[in-house]
């Protein structure tokens, strides 16, 4: 496959040095001090799936760089009439798209787009596969709080199986030698999950996952993707909900992250969500400069 230069399809095949370059550039980006790096460019936001954070964040990022944005959602567009993924791609290309940002419920949809269309394609989340911009903004957030990846231990708790955020995070953190612990029930954390990247281990016990941990990443139980899996929610809460007692097992200066949307009372308690250690809103905030860097890179302006 030969995607256009500047495409960002996933973290897995991205070099560590390239990741650091993006994070470094992101630190210089500030939506309150707009820079016209993408002046006159057109960013097409192709959203086949609901999104609040990612969509608004990409939109603000693009506008902060001086680009025009056009949002196309499945509902209310030709997609609803049965237009194929590639035909929609050819159409937005013909309209004059300079960058395509795509969110899609099927894994690999951005790859199919990038294979056929000569415009940088940015994956804003594809099915269960990857969510690279989320992993980058999480790395950005971790580095803001922990200064370095060196010696870090990160526990990822919850629905790993259905999580593109978890897959991208594992690939990214693994490239920097971070110790990764995946924690959850077998239905959500299958044994095969630890084969994703080097340096990953799995556990079924929160205590085991949290001891000595610097960063706790919580994931939502994705009810819409469970498709037949039966998860006993009260039992899940009993075993895996993050509460203040459990949080104390982690390092004193541990931070709590969550890609959102959070469901209070399910994967975490309100106390944890609102605690001093939570970085959930900081992640959202960091999404904008990170995505500015991603968009600038797409146009070869990341210098």
């Amino acid at each position: 496959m030969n995607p256009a230069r500047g495409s960002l399809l996933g973290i897995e095949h991205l070099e560590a040095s390239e990741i650091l370059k993006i994070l470094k550039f992101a630190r210089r980006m500030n939506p309150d001090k707009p820079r016209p790096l993408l002046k006159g460019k057109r960013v097409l936001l192709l959203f086949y799936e609901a999104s609040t954070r990612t969509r608004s964040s990409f939109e603000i990022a693009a506008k902060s760089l001086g680009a025009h944005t056009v949002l196309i959602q499945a509902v209310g567009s030709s997609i609803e009439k049965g237009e194929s993924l590639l035909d929609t791609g050819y159409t937005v290309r013909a309209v004059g798209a300079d960058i395509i940002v795509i969110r899609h419920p099927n894994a690999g949809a951005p790859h199919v787009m990038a294979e056929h269309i000569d415009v940088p394609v940015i994956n804003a989340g594809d099915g269960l596969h990857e969510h690279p911009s989320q992993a980058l903004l999480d790395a950005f957030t971790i580095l803001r709080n922990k200064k370095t990846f060196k010696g870090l231990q990160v526990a990822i708790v919850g629905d790993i199986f259905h999580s593109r955020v978890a897959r991208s995070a594992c690939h990214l953190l693994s490239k920097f030698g971070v110790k990764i612990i995946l924690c959850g029930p077998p239905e959500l954390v299958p044994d095969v999950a630890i084969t994703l990247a080097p340096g990953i281990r799995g556990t079924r016990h929160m205590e085991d996952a949290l001891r000595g941990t610097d960063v706790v990443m919580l994931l939502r139980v994705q009810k819409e993707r469970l498709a037949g899996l039966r998860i006993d929610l009260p039992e899940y809460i009993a075993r895996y909900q993050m509460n203040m007692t459990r949080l104390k097992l982690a390092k004193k200066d541990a931070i709590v992250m969550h890609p959102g949307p959070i469901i209070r009372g399910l994967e975490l308690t309100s106390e944890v969500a609102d605690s001093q250690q939570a970085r959930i809103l900081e992640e959202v905030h960091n999404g904008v400069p990170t995505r500015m860097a991603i968009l600038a890179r797409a146009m070869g302006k990341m210098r």
Partner: protein
Amino acid sequence: MTEKKRANLPPPGLLIRGGHLIDPAARIDAPMDVLLKNGRVAEVAPPSKIKGSVEEKFDARGLIVAPGFIDLHVHLREPGQTHKETIPTGTAAAAAGGFASVCTMPNTIPVIDSAEWVEWLREPERGAVVNVFGIAAATEASKGLVLTDFRALQIAGAIAVTDDGKPILEDAIMREALVLGGELNFPVVQHAEDTRMTENCAMHAGAQSFRLGLRGMPAAAEASIVERDVHLAMQIPNARLHVAHISTADALKSVRRGKRAKARVTAEVTPHHFTLTDDDMRDYDSNYKMNPPLRSASDLEAILVALADGTLDAIATDHAPHAAHEKEMEFERAAFGITGLETALALAITRLHREKRIPLARIVELFTAGPARCFDLRGRGTLVRGSVADVTVFDPKKKWTFDRTKSLSKSKNTPFDGWQMTGRVVATIVGGKIVYFG
């Protein structure tokens, strides 16, 4: 009318001389000349021993002469889906791949579930270049509820029944099919997949499917159905079970057990399942999407053992053509299946013979005597005197590169584009007539 009469005249005699004959059913693996006359094999004799005048001679020096290849599992897409393939294009691809006979799957539109449709398939107007044997649906409209009229289908010319792609899950229906098939000596072909375990799945369940974020089909979805079917075949007198495109180590164990118990169980494997694994799929290329899916490396190892030790009876392509727009899309939504007629022999020679040292005679058996036995194709799969004059001539040493744009199939959905392979078909002869010469 005169046209038709002329076409029906027996073709002139054809002497294939100078070649090396491999006819596993007759236990021949030696230099032999073969004389074809009146659509039959008239004589097989050591080089230059056949006397008398023959109108046509075929120089087979340096080539292997084999009984015409038989493919037990082909989708020709007629009636109903001629945008994917037609009988003329599909059988032309078959001829180019060395197949003198193909057995077609009934999952067409409409489903081939009546004697009328089986007869329709066999009419000369269909324009087939090679022999077409219809496999009919096992249940009405392949809905898995009511058995079709096996007897009528058999009389109409169907050689087996199957609900390919829509496996028979109900124990009672499968039992009923095997009982009736047993009474009529009619094979029941099963695409073994417990579809209750594979909903929304696009590939094999394993590390690779997890990595790609694709829901995976567990190996058990195949193995559990094969286990059940073999168990039934062992209990029901004369039942004939044929396991289509087997892909997992556990399913092979069941077949082996059935064969040891002398049950009438046969099985086929596709070239892609002995060549590729789930690890080979990159970048969501839907030319690697088929059902059953590419399996793990250990499944592939078990297939190689089963090919060598006789557990497997046939190599069948599961040639499944699809138009580009049905494949170039989201992997999870793309159609299952790949083409395979024109690459089967070369993959077998390259992978099985040259790399895995499986004797050429065994490979020829898997394309000829083996499949002929599975469906009782009398007079085929061998070149003993009096058998049908279907012959495949190939060069086992010829190196070539497959270019899908040159494929004779209407569809180009193959993962083997650009592959360098060894072994190429030189000629395919059907009923004494050369239908392909490359």
